[in-house]
């Protein structure tokens, strides 16, 4: 009786999650595959659809798509690299300042919880040419004001600034937790052996932190490939296509031109790139 009840119970408990994930994650993914082999367009409110293989050939020759991939790669690599260097530096710093450690990590927890859209808006205001705080500071130290969001190159820098401000604290929190959990003995032994600080960092801290560093990088890389909200609000891909990352290009194809089949193909490409990067990190983790 009891066994029967728990037999039924376990299915009762798992079925809701199972249904949700099958219906709203697995099914849409399969449907995206299907859509990528169709031309699916919305023309004056009605959906027009037919089978075609042209999307895959088209996407490889689409200069705007290739451009968006380049922008995405530079954005992800620069952003994640800066976040990692700053996050690690600040993690070591927080470890060294015993007295204010807790207060410091509390302050650093703030950006992590802020919505992407709101961070994009805050930076839109901060980088405003006329009254923005960044230009006010530049003027105070005697530099001339810059048109952050209107200039091709500066718009990309703005994006990186916003991203690094938002997510360095995340990398910091993860690495700091890792640094705090490091065993003490190897460091004491190294001091006895007369190792310099640089040697200790190079031969003890980094190797011991490696698994956690890889997890932090993996999380950030995967999230940076998806970055959409803040870019949508901050530059909307502009000026021109200077900051048009792939996710934004796909969005525009799907919901401004309403070419849903082509957008699905682009989405699958992006998913493939994300999976390849994840596998690369997991391989690093393995060795």
């Amino acid at each position, binding site marked *: 009786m009891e066994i029967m009840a728990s037999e039924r119970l376990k299915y009762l408990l798992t079925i809701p999650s199972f249904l949700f994930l099958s219906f709203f994650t697995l099914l*849409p993914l399969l449907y995206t595959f299907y859509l990528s082999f169709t031309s699916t367009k919305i023309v004056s409110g009605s959906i027009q659809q037919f089978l075609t293989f042209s999307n895959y050939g088209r996407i490889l020759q689409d200069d705007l798509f290739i451009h968006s991939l380049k922008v995405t790669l530079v954005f992800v690599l620069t952003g994640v690299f800066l976040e990692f260097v700053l996050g690690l530096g600040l993690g070591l710093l927080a470890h060294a300042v015993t007295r204010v450690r807790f207060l410091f990590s*509390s302050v*650093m927890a703030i950006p992590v919880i802020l919505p*992407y859209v709101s961070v994009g808006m805050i930076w839109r205001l901060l980088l405003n040419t006329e009254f923005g705080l960044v230009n006010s500071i530049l003027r105070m130290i005697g530099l001339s004001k810059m048109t952050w969001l209107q200039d091709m190159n500066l718009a990309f820098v703005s994006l990186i600034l916003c991203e690094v401000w938002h997510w360095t604290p995340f990398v910091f929190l993860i690495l700091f937790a890792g640094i705090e959990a490091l065993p003490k003995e190897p460091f004491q032994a190294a001091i006895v052996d007369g190792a310099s600080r640089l040697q200790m960092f190079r031969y003890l801290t980094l190797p011991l932190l490696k698994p956690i560093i890889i997890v932090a990088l993996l*999380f950030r890389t995967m999230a940076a490939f998806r970055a959409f909200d803040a870019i949508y609000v901050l530059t909307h891909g502009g000026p021109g296509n200077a900051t048009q990352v792939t996710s934004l290009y796909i969005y525009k194809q799907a919901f401004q031109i309403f070419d849903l089949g082509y957008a699905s193909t682009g989405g699958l490409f992006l998913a493939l790139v*994300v999976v390849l990067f994840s596998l690369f990190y997991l391989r690093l983790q393995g060795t």
Partner: protein
Amino acid sequence: MQHYQDRALEALKYFCVVMTCLIILVPLAWTVVLSFETYRDLITMRFPFTPTFENYISLFHPIADLPTSMTPFIRNSILVTAIAVVMIVPVGSLAAYAICTFKFKWRIDRALLALSLLGRMVPLICLTPSLFLMTWYLGLYDTWLGLILLYVNLNLPFTIWIMKAFIDELPKEIEEAALIDGCTRLQALKNVVLPLVTPGLFTAALFAFLFTWNEFLLALVITHTAQVQPIPIFLSFLSQEFIALYGEMGAAVTLFVIPVIVLTFFLQKNLVRGLTFGAVKG
């Protein structure tokens, strides 16, 4: 000599700490201050200025440039987030409990974990064309129900994984002792397991709240009217290039972020636990 060098190094460390805190906090404080400035004061950079609630008032009383009042967006966000969180936590944590406790035929538990991993791996943008069409065909396009169901789904993977981590940490013997003493499975779950995983439930609920409240892309894709759209969509209206409602932007961001900061403040311990969850588990 050594002594002075140490003192200088110490001072440098604290200088960096203070600078970092300023870089984090000043932009936020500046935005809040800006939300109390009139357009004229802002553009002419008059300081000090007379604080005013004008921007906040005009968010709720649509004026020339602003197509719509913020009121329905706030209602939608609160409604959708509240219902979604109330659904996610039990659905996700009960599944996690079942995975940890029972043996399954046909590896259903493995399949569920694999599905949730898939949910975390695939970028949402990749699913937007199909989710748009699915909600369209099912009559869920531009409805609260559509938003709620999809938000529950988006949050499930994280909830299942983090609750699994919490439940795996409990010693099996406690629950087994309760069962031997004559508790049914449900009684053991309610009286023994539930109290022990409460911190986990709070962590899961906090992240479900943060994620749902902050979500933008899906709302952009499957909603269309102010009667359904959440606050982030309203914010994106304000940030269009030809709109120069800067004070209102500051005010709207402030209103949007306040609940996030307040809730996280009360649940701060759970936050760091949740963020570093993946890292510590390796």
